């Protein structure tokens, strides 16, 4: 085995790097445009009812995730029609959802709903019920626990 041979001196490149540089800049620009143009609109925020009240003008009609505690559940298993209020102790909003709900959906349960406001009612397309502290608890649940403590 021999010692590594020294590298030859770098030859000056014959071609101009300008096209490459321009190409990279164009791609980065395009990527940035798509990313930040689109991202701004496709960002989905997590709010509590009180935060929504404060930022209503900004958030109205946007896809949202709203977290809080469940109150006043009315559920018909035959039609799968679910209505309840979500509250964080301050503000409270009615939520409307269609779909099956397990027995775990109870009063005072922490919940995160995904959907958007139409008027004063939150139309949920997805329901994330908090089942257990132990498994796959998203960070929002830590915040929800704080809410729970505050509202008790």
């Amino acid at each position, binding site marked *: 085995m021999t010692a590594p041979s020294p590298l030859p001196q*770098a030859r000056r490149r014959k071609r101009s790097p300008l096209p490459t540089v321009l190409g990279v800049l164009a791609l980065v620009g395009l*990527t940035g445009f798509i*990313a930040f143009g689109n991202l701004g609109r496709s*960002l989905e925020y997590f709010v509590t009812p009180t935060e929504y009240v404060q930022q209503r003008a900004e958030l109205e009609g946007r*896809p949202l995730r709203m977290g809080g505690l469940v109150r006043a559940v009315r559920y018909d298993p035959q039609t799968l029609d679910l209505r309840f209020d979500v509250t964080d102790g301050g503000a409270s909003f009615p939520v409307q959802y*269609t*779909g099956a709900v397990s027995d775990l959906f109870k009063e005072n349960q922490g919940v995160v709903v995904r959907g958007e406001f139409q008027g004063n009612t939150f139309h949920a397309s997805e329901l994330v019920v908090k089942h257990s502290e132990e498994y796959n608890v998203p960070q929002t649940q830590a915040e929800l626990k704080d809410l729970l403590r505050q509202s008790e």
Partner: protein
Amino acid sequence: MLNLISFQSSALGALGQLALLAALAFTLGGTWLAVVGGLRADTRATEAARRAVWAVFALVSLATLTLMAALLGDDFSVRYVAEHSMRASPTWVKVTSLWGALEGSILLWAWLLAGFAFVLSLTLRRDALRPWALGAMFVSLLFFVGVCASVASPFTPVAQIPADGRGPNPALQNHWMMAIHPVLLYLGFVGLAVPFAYAVAALITGRLSDHWVVATRRWTLTAWAFLTAAIVAGGWWSYETLGWGGYWAWDPVENASLIPWLLATAFLHSVQIQERRGLMRAWNVWLIVLAYASTVLGTFLNRSGIVQSVHAFAGGPVGPVFLGFLAFLLVAGIGLAAWRAPHLRDEADAPAPVSREGAFLAGNWLFLVFAVMVLVGTLFPTLVEAVQGRRDASVGPAFYNAFAIPLGLGLMLLMGVGPLLPWRRAEGEKLWQALRPLLLAGLSAGLLAFVLGVRSPGVLGTIALSAYNLVGLGLLTLRALRQRGGGFAGLVREQPRRYGAYLAHVGLVVMALGIAFSGAYRQDAQATLNVGAAPSRLLNETLALRSVGVERRTDGASQVARVLIDGRPFEARLNTFIQGGETAFAAPAVRYGLLGDTYLVVTAFDPQGRWASVRLIESPLISWIWWGTLVVVLGAGLTLVTPRRAAVRVPVTRAAAATD
């Protein structure tokens, strides 16, 4: 560190911890020996470093077996077993608990890495790259074995030995796929460490000729095939267990496995340009450094809780440690490449745009942009949180689909034209002649689909490009058959690399069709069914609930709904686990079909057994994704076959067999 070895720990715990510490010592020694072997060109030191790899592999294997024995023997004095296993679990669940939580999964990673290093130590050629490739593997090992032996040791004892463990995460024991997907994924991730090690060795020694690229072809392909299979297996797993009828949610951790796959795919293609034309040498070094770093990034995202994900493990000291290693890899890789890149000289000027290498280069850019966009989407919410102070912004699938569909179609376009183009340069006239049948096929397939009622632009594009690709590959094969004769099998035996690549491309076309159709034409409906009631109509099917009942298992209970869908029986379950409390995990009933799947989930039960709420999903062509992947992996396997020469029989020497 102080409580790592304690006299109260059981025999197994102490054995495992000692094995890990000894492995760490051998890793440190081996690193030093490899560096000495490289600096002084000392064959004996290099040979000793090689032996140290064997010792590390043996010791990490011992630690892994010890943990397995502790899991199977319900030894709850080992903390990992106490926290992630329990007596009542079936044996296969105890086995999979080895990688079902943080510490065990890092141990598995370290073990596979040591295994790859072991195989590498057997196949490395005796050249200047050898000590440095070993050294680079040792640095990766140093990190993983070090983490296992210290901050994330599975063997730390517990203060009070519980009578029974807390049990595995019930979400992970709901399906046998737990035994497959994580192992495949780690094999894919770990496999990328080998080409990375070769690239580092090439950079350090300055042997930047194309040897390192040729030597890593099989490693890269193998890792890539595992990674491909792992990603799709993960998708199929979530399809079979999570009850949402989908397979990909652009979840941050899913993205974290996609980024290395995109970069590795780009690398597999651009490496061929270097092999054939001596171009893109610097580019390939960068690609493999980034691909390997992105596997560590993925693990960091997975383990740190910095992004929200269904996969995220709870935080702990491991996140920052991974971030540190990621930073080290990036700084060292970028530093090395920046130091050597000025010396990396291509043999010719930049590829002509209309040539095989031009198509590969364009594809590389698309893969790179794809990877960057996925990364941006994954990290953007975290950035928003840091900058704006808003909690928990998230980017929906709409963002990803906005670029993934056009980029995917662009890649299919290049995939069809690439193999048609000659190396170096194509003349316009000939290119047009070659492309005409493909474009005709694509256009007519697209038109036919439009007439048959397909209106979604993404699906139309996929159909057109699928026909264009398949006709292209078919024509190339026919032309070769006409020129050479000797039958298709003989052709494949002579050029397994080429036909393996074709086969992989066919598999990707099948997958693309599955993704397009199941995405665009999926139907979803929910209803409550009553036992004994008249059948309900849902999505062109008639559903009748025959019974709802409870079945006891050793580790929990299952609620079973027996439903007739158009007369065919379906059994959908909701499983509960002892350690999971009331939380129920859906086990959908899926009827697989060539043209589409029928997928039934039970979402709620009446405790008296009178009714059950169900969700019915129909996804056309979705199983083409799984079958297509099988074809891709078979194709990748075929490219690894050693070609048989038609007339000349070359005796295969041991040295030749051992290197490539």
